[in-house]
């Protein structure tokens, strides 16, 4: 699936809850719980995402010109958010990642749910993932 298709799928799933923010939030947290466990060895200061109020770790694995991400967070909601980014970008080429316009977060009504400090954290996660893509491109 393309990054656009994956984003559209995420949006469709969230729209099932209509305007019920609480259910959306619970669904988001459930998605976070399904994120594959991150190796404890990778949960180090080096892989912590700066700019997040809660702790988020992102570890990139480069394989056959694609990037896979291990991720974790100490809060359930942030973990849910990072799991969505992993869903969109995991296993994609750096070119794909760099070219993606991320629009799903607004469409699933999370930009209003997520306070500005956490939003900044979300931007930091996006920036970090793009930096890993950029690094792979220029390898």
């Amino acid at each position, binding site marked *: 699936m393309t990054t656009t298709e994956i984003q559209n799928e995420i949006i469709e799933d969230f729209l099932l809850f209509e305007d*019920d*923010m609480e259910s959306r*939030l619970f669904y988001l947290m459930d998605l976070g719980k399904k994120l594959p466990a991150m190796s404890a060895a990778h949960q180090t200061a080096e892989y912590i995402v700066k700019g997040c*109020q*809660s702790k988020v770790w992102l570890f990139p694995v480069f394989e056959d010109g694609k990037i896979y991400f291990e991720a974790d967070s100490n809060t*359930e*909601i942030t973990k849910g958010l990072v799991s969505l980014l992993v869903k969109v970008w995991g296993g994609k080429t750096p070119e794909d990642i760099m070219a993606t316009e991320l629009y799903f977060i607004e469409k699933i009504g999370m930009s209003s*749910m*997520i306070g500005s400090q956490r939003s900044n954290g979300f931007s930091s996660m996006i920036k970090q993932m793009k930096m890993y893509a950029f690094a792979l491109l220029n390898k």
Partner: protein
Amino acid sequence: MTSAKQDIQLVRGQFPILHQEVNGKPLIYFDNAATTQKPLAVINALNEYYSLHNANIHRGAHTLADRSTGYFEDTRKSVQTFINAKEAEECIFTKGITESINLVAQTYGKKFLNAGDEVIISYMEHHSNIVPWQMICEEKGALLKVIPIHANGELNLEVYEQMLSVRTKIVACIWASNALGTINPIEKIIELAHSKGAIVLIDGAQAGSHISIDVQSLDIDFLVLSSHKLYGPTGVGVLYGKRALLEAMPPYQGGGEMIREVSFAVTTYNDIPFKFEAGTPNIGDVIAFKYALEFVTKRGLTNIAAYELMLLNYFVDGVKNIQNELGVDCVELIGTAQNKVAVQSFNIKGKHPFDIGMMLDAKGIAVRTGHHCTQPLMNFYGIEGTVRASFALYNTVEEIDVLLTSISAIIKR
């Protein structure tokens, strides 16, 4: 005669912001320790000021300027009455408590602190009553000492007493803790400090809306207050200081208003309070602040405190019921001092405060989560942060029921 229920509805009617839905649920505002909502009288005063009276103060020889100046100075008199200061001139307007404390640290501290002197603060201070003292102590080679606390969130006064010596020059202490709700025994703190010749700054951020203040009978040297935590506009703070102290202090910022005469060779400074009010102040907000003070005074701080204490006890009892039902360690209360304002921190086992805050927000409940600008205090408890519910005169037991039900649901999830 109105019943208690009718009365609270009348009060809520004064606060237009409360009558809205958030995330499809009626807003329940429990973040009053961060800032209180504003009554109509304050909102209308702001509107009226900019619609009818706006002019720069203490300068112009025209009607609007006279009028604005009069209203501005009226608020100073209201502050004087509110805290029972001897003179209105002892009440200085700042942009907030942070500025008030920095002002004292950078003027009184700069002039009177010397190497080897000591400044005492407490473990439960807000960062705004820690960092300004750290900065001036570092500059002057003075030592910053910290009064420890007991696990329930009360100050260890025995250690405080031992800490005091002739080297102690300043004691800066929060009256009511923003993170724990503890009301500190400032009368005792002041008396002990004075016995060693130290002056005392009291941070009244949380106390202002809950406790009646009499700076003269408490013999407070400096008191700092925040308008926006007292139902008034943001951007207005008060620094009360005894005249002798304020007069002995050098100016804080240079500029207009604070001068008597300026030449390129020498400048002489204005009298208090103007010496400390350089530049055009926040005129409109100061003027509207008077209406907040009137609102609180009319309700009566004793009545307000009694009602809020009832809300606090109702919440604490409700949490204890949850503990009885779902296990004693499923939810932890942080800050269980005997004497408290209506602020309660808590944590839910296995849940991060941010997640709890977001889940409560989804139910329309506004609480604060995080370290509450008291990181040393959080370190004392070995936690990253808490969820904090803080109640005000417009909150209801029905709202607390919604919070308690939500807490149960989060634990059970």
